[in-house]
């Protein structure tokens, strides 16, 4: 076509003619494809990789596992690219990642480490999932994620000590490696196995009884006792004892999860207010109406918290299934426990309407107990992730302290507006909790920062590096609510306004603290770069 045009041009055709012909030619694909299509490889994928995957399916008591030969891995990262291409993943998505181990000055060492899901024998992701969106295949041991079941709560991301599940923003769900189970079922090698130029990645059958339940699968990886990961890293050269991930010294912020931070503070405030209300009712210092007003305030905060938590979900319409995981998942239990709040609210309203103070007292107490139980579940949700910063003492101290302080603060503010004498007591307790909680937090942070052996030393470093202004802000808020406001009240400022402002400021302080509770969590992961 272009040649015809050319002839015309040279025999007096216009330059525009040859231009058009050239542009048209550029957009034509037919020629090469018509010429050279239907290529077949001399050997199919199935034949080419038989030596890298097991000959037979796992027997009972066995499962599939990745084996990585470190001697053959040179860090070319073809596995990362191939996982992306052969699985049709999103632009920057790959279920394999590459990290680096380095040595010390005296013992130089360099080893690239390819890593994907370890298809753990006791998968923490699956154990934490509130909706049973993980399935550990009984025959193959592959930990598969059910994309359509997932509600996008991200709890598996917090649970996995290897940072394997990744949130997919576009789809509102988590996705992860499935060891190319469909390929394996047909006797084909997974994408990464196919891609490695040096055959460094293999699929093996391992006996469950031989999956290590202590130590680490490789330097820098989380203690294997938690999930019993099945990947093995082999090398003819022993890893130097001092080998550490190249990014070990890097202090990075984790995801902040703002809806969760707000939800935790609001629900804890609510639980505390219910407890305060119940205690006051048992002490017979609240009338039915005052108790109703206090409970209403507590309920509003609690429901607001629950509502906010929905914002955290990628697939909120599927959240109704959150009870499914109650056998193993603290998140599921927390959701069920907070589900009691609206019920408690209805019971309190009904007993108030009926005018029966005894029943109402029981209803408020029951709601307070349920809310307290839910707060305990909240504590366990984080403790169960095995992150040092979220240890039982740390998390329980923060959550219960917040509950008591903001609960007392809410009661004080509500009761002072109602001009109830018990408000003075609530105020005193608020002040006590305020100082106790803050001083406890501050001293723990100090000692974690100074003590390199402290389990959450790293979190303290992250806080210092990235969030020192938040810690400082909390300190200012402590002075404001713990010193200035009481002094101003002593000097005759309006008690009701002062206590309300104090409550708002204490709430703000806890939201800030809860934010860095997440960002400074310093979750563990496989070696990075």
């Amino acid at each position, binding site marked *: 076509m272009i040649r015809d045009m050319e002839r015309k041009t040279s025999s007096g055709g216009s330059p525009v003619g040859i231009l058009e012909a050239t542009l048209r030619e550029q957009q034509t694909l037919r020629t090469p494809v018509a010429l050279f299509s239907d290529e077949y490889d001399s050997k199919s994928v199935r034949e080419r990789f038989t030596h890298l995957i097991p000959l037979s399916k796992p027997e009972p008591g066995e499962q599939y596992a990745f084996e990585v030969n470190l001697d053959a891995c040179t860090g070319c990262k*073809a596995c990362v690219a191939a996982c992306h291409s052969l699985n049709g993943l999103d632009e920057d998505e790959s279920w394999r990642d590459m990290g680096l181990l380095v040595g010390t000055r005296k013992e130089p060492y360099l080893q690239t480490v390819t890593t994907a899901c370890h298809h753990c024998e006791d998968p923490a992701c699956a154990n934490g999932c509130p909706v049973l969106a993980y399935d550990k295949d009984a025959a193959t041991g592959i930990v598969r994620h059910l994309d359509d079941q997932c509600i996008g709560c991200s709890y598996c991301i917090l649970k996995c000590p290897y940072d394997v599940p990744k949130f997919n923003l576009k789809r509102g769900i988590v996705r992860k490696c499935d060891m190319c189970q469909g390929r394996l079922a047909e006797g084909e090698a997974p994408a990464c196995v196919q891609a490695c130029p040096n055959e460094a990645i293999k699929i093996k059958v391992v006996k469950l009884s031989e999956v290590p339940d202590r130590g680490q699968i490789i330097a820098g990886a989380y203690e294997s006792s938690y999930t019993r990961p099945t990947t093995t890293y082999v090398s003819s050269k022993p890893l130097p004892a001092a080998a550490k991930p190249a990014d070990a010294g890097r202090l990075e912020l984790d995801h902040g999860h703002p809806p969760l931070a707000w939800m935790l503070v609001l629900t804890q405030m609510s639980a505390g207010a219910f407890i305060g209300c119940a205690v006051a009712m048992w002490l017979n210092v609240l009338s039915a109406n005052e108790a109703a007003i206090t409970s209403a305030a507590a309920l509003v905060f609690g429901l607001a918290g629950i509502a906010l938590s929905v914002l955290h979900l990628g697939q909120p319409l599927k959240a109704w299934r959150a009870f499914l995981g109650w056998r193993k998942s603290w998140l599921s239990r927390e959701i069920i426990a907070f589900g009691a709040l609206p019920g408690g609210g209805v019971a309190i309203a009904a007993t108030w309407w009926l005018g029966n103070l005894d029943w109402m007292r029981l209803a408020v107490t029951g709601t307070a107990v349920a809310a307290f139980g839910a707060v305990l579940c909240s504590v366990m949700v984080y403790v169960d992730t095995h992150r040092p910063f979220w240890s039982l003492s740390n998390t329980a101290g923060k959550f219960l302290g917040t509950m008591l302080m903001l609960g007392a603060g809410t009661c004080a503010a509500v009761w002072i507006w109602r001009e109830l004498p018990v408000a003075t007591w609530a105020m005193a307790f608020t002040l006590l909790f305020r100082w106790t909680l803050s001083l406890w937090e501050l001293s723990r942070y100090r000692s974690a920062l100074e003590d390199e052996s402290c389990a959450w030393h790293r979190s303290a470093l992250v806080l210092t590096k990235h969030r020192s202004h938040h810690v400082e802000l909390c300190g200012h808020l402590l002075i404001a609510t713990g010193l200035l406001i009481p002094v101003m009240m002593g000097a005759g400022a309006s008690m009701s306004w002062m206590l309300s402002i104090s409550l708002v400021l204490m709430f703000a302080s806890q939201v800030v603290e809860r934010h860095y509770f997440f960002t400074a969590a310093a979750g563990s992961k496989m070696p990075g770069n």
Partner: protein
Amino acid sequence: MITPPAMTFREWNGPLTADLVREPAKFGLGQVPSRLVPDATTKAICGFCSTGCGLKIHLKDGEAINLTPDPDYPVNIGTACPKGWEALSVLDAPDRAKMPVLHGKEVDWDTALRYFCDTMRGILDKHGPEAAAFLSTGQIVFEEMAFLGALAKFGMGMIHGDGNTRQCMATAVTAYKESFGFDAPPFTYGDFEESDVLVFIGANPCIAHPIMWQRVLRNQRNPEIIVVDPRFTETAMAATQHYAIKPKSDLTLLYGIAHLIIRDGGLDSAFIADHTRRFDEFAVLVADFTPERVSAETGISAERLVHFAKTIIEGTPRVSFWWTMGVNQSHQATRTAQAIINLALMTGNIGKPGTGANSITGQCNAMGSRLFSNTTNLLGGHDFRNPAHREKVAAATGIPVERIPDRPSLAYDQIIKAADEGTVKAIWFVATNPSHSWIDQNKMNRVLDKLEFLVVQDMYCTTETAKRAHLVLPAAGWGEKEGCFINSERRIGYSPKVRRAPGQALADFHIFRLIAHYWGCEDLFRGWQTPESAFRILQRCSENQPCDITGIEGHEMLRKSGGVQWPLSREQGSKFEVSSFKERRLFEDGQFYTPDKRAQFVFDPPEAAPEQRSEEYPLILMTGRGTSAQWHTETRTGKSAVLAKMMPEELMVDVNPVDAERLGLCDGASVRVVSKRAELSAKLRVTTCVNPGEVFLPMHDNRVNQLTHASFDPHSRQPSYKHSAVRIEA
């Protein structure tokens, strides 16, 4: 995307699960994602590095939708590095050049081509044929390179044109020409598998040529792997012996090893006598390179030097030597490359399986450029100065002989110098980005800004050079046009057109045809209708040269045969069989391409690098490849989100713990790296991978070459990127 739940407790399937469903594809591919099931496949050669991997392109309705490495291609045997895997995705970048851009405004092709021709002609007419030059590339198919060289020199009448291959391979070219009589890398990749000893000098194939490293690991002979590199690279880690020499002490080291081979009886005297020249003079030179002296100058103990030499002696006759940019980019690069060649010659490690003095090339078509770019050499490895050569090329191309210049071009740095001095007023850059990559970048940019006319022909309108251009011509990229590449082992492979170019971007071949038309010289290029017809012309140019390819029956044969290594003369072509011609090395008969058929020992005493440490600048800066996911100035690799995951987010400067401690800086600190020429900010990476007193920066950051000191090898005119003095400040 919020999806409604199904009314079951557990949803095992649904739209989100379907996203990832894989199903069996034909063509031996196994399972592929359902939405990417191809209806046909075809084969291509990767357009990044010189390894020259075969890629199998998955097509749907004639257009490429995915790719996998070609399991039947003899180079890569079914694997590819991340760049290859991502070769298609970088074509979709939003900053692709879609229309010609003249002084910052989009114009139509007619306007652009008229402006190009009028301006170039104006400059050439007014200031003479030396006033305009072109700077070509190792990144396009050689039919296009040849067309560019022929059009610019024979059609438009330019004298000067060079390529970015000056930055990577010029040294190997010069060294081979002087030593062997022709620019002839003697090896085949099979030699990686056949060696008992592999010596890598200034090469980090684990990262820079991962698929070549695959071939090393396929070696079943349990080889000794020696790495000579100031840095403790991934390849050094995988080696059995690593010699972390002081930067640019490589020539001294190699002479020292030659000294020890002579002393310890490692010579192949028969080979030296029958097939080489000037060994005795060489022996006199290296007599002074005693282990004591060499140890002092390289930092390697005498004992280890002896072990190095002994490993070579014991490995003979299956010792192969491999070098790349660590050698080529030096102030004494050619002699260093020749010192490697000398080691191979004196031990007879050449022309046999698992041997050779082997230059690993850089760009996908650096080898094509060496033969056919019509820059330093006349088409087909000929000499512009030789009247017989001009006659031969005139006959082969149908170009009147008087249109062929009788002198070779200035080298790249000389063209830039001429531009600085004002004698060159217009430069036409094709598929290269010197505003980022050229040494002492600030100076380069000052020169570029002086030009009366700067034309950039590129896939992307956002390259640092394109942003400075008066005129940008939008080019189709790899996969959007067809033609051939020649890889490191001289294998010619064909790559087809499998994608539509964006907007009005055109294949470089088309652009040259249009320029020929607008210039009014299309009659000269009547034979250059298609890349394949250009290929035929180039075959004729190669006739009776060492790189004779007259036996290749066009593109179709290349595609079907898994590539063909040069030479393939008509006579060899008549006997061609895929299996017996799969891997061929040169010089099996000991006959070299010099007039007397003998290889020559070429040598000079070492000299100190021009820029040394000083009190003010106490550290030596080396630059090089960052990761396997990065390619040169990253105009392409920077566009893939997956590749981006594989590279550091910030520029990291590697510093030894001793220096970090001295400076009082810790890992991750923000620092400034300062040279006499410029400074930049980077994050400190404290690592034992560099020795005290040395620092390393990856070349991919567009600021790094502001620091580098511009010195050049006097023979190859290749820039020396590996030795600049810097200091580091908090």
